[in-house]
């Protein structure tokens, strides 16, 4: 498995097919995590690394392709995607170099094994009443960290919005519709299949969301899966239809609401007389309170992640699509 991973690592520079290989790489590393008995990480890697990232990269690629269009080598503009890749791989090499200084793998003397981990593993079950250690660590002991992560994602969404902006309603509208009807006939299979699949994916996302305490999963993964369902919808039925279901404005509000749910839970704890994000005070029984707190927090994370991911996708693909359509519009 490791050999294969290394292989894909080496060949990653090869072609435009980089993205697919990247997806492969994610799958492989997820499998690797799984064999290390870390299903939470594997799930995250699977959903984010193998799912969202390639799709977003495709969107980006469509963008970069458009940008390098005016250049003389328009046809081979795909190669321009290679330069950032080289930079990234150099960074990767630097990172690998940095890891040489880290303690050896599974070294029992490594600091991480001596400090907080034993406590997490031994006592988290009793202290928080939650079977899944990872979730209890993330949402309870490390509540602040996770809050920070939620904010980072929020900030990322904002950044992309600020840079690229949502589709300003221009002349593109009628072209979309034209495209959608053109696709409608040829994608019959896809339509019917995804019609059944989408509810299942949505439900699955919610399942992952609410079972964060029992099985691998939680807000991040659930948010991504949820977003993926919508992305499938957008892919099959066209962006315009997806906008109708989940308008960008709603998404923007959802982003804010998600972060607010998280922060609000903390504030609620403050009001009820505890520390910030100390869930114990949310109920008469500390454990019960922990439960409620974690569910709320996960919900906040899930909503944030889902809306940010959808925003990213919509923004990227919207830009790409618009640019293409504009060009076609100019020609016809």
């Amino acid at each position: 498995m490791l050999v294969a991973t290394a292989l894909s690592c080496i060949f990653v520079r090869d072609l435009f097919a980089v993205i697919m290989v990247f997806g492969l790489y994610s799958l492989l590393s997820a499998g690797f995590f799984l064999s290390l008995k870390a299903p939470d990480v594997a799930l995250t890697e699977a959903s984010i690394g193998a799912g969202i990232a390639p799709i977003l990269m495709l969107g980006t690629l469509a963008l970069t392709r458009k940008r390098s269009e005016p250049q003389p080598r328009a046809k081979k503009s795909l190669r321009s995607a290679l330069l950032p890749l080289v930079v990234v791989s150099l960074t990767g090499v630097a990172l690998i170099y940095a890891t040489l200084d880290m303690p050896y793998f599974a070294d029992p003397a490594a600091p991480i094994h001596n400090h907080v981990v034993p406590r997490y593993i031994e006592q988290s079950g009793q202290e928080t009443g939650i079977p899944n250690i990872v979730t209890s660590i993330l949402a309870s002991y490390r509540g602040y960290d996770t809050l920070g992560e939620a904010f980072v994602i929020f900030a990322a969404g904002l950044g992309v919005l600020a840079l690229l902006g949502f589709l300003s309603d221009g002349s593109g509208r009628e072209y979309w519709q034209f495209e959608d009807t053109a696709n409608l006939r040829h994608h019959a299979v896809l339509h019917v299949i995804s019609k059944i699949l989408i509810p299942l994916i949505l439900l699955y996302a919610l399942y992952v969301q609410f079972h964060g305490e029992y099985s691998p999963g939680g807000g991040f993964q659930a948010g991504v899966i949820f977003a993926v369902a919508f992305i499938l919808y957008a892919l099959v039925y066209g962006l315009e239809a997806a906008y109708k279901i989940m308008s960008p404005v709603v998404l923007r509000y959802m982003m804010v609401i998600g972060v607010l749910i998280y922060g609000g839970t903390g504030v609620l704890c403050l009001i009820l007389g505890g520390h910030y994000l100390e869930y114990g005070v949310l109920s008469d029984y500390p454990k019960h309170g922990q439960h409620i707190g974690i569910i709320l927090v996960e919900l906040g994370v899930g909503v944030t992640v889902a809306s940010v991911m959808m925003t990213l996708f919509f923004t990227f693909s919207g830009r790409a699509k618009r640019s293409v359509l504009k060009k076609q519009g100019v020609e016809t």
Partner: protein
Amino acid sequence: MFLAATLSIMTVMLLALIRAFAGPGLFDRILAVNMFGTKTVLLVAVLSVLGGQPTFIDVAVVYVLINFISIVAVLRFFEFGRREDEAEEGR
């Protein structure tokens, strides 16, 4: 015996990987990647039974869905890109 299952699936994965790198055409690569993904799912299923942990199957289910959707995304992208090329040629 689980070893046999794991080994055979890994062989398939390896072959698919080689196909993905060597594949003459774009679609061969996508096909190989798809196959690789499905085999990963199988591998995860085997691992979960081997470890006796039903929760691993969640990961497998996510793989199936994600794999499917990324294939759809990639194909839609190329369909789309092709239209762009066509437009370019038409000019």
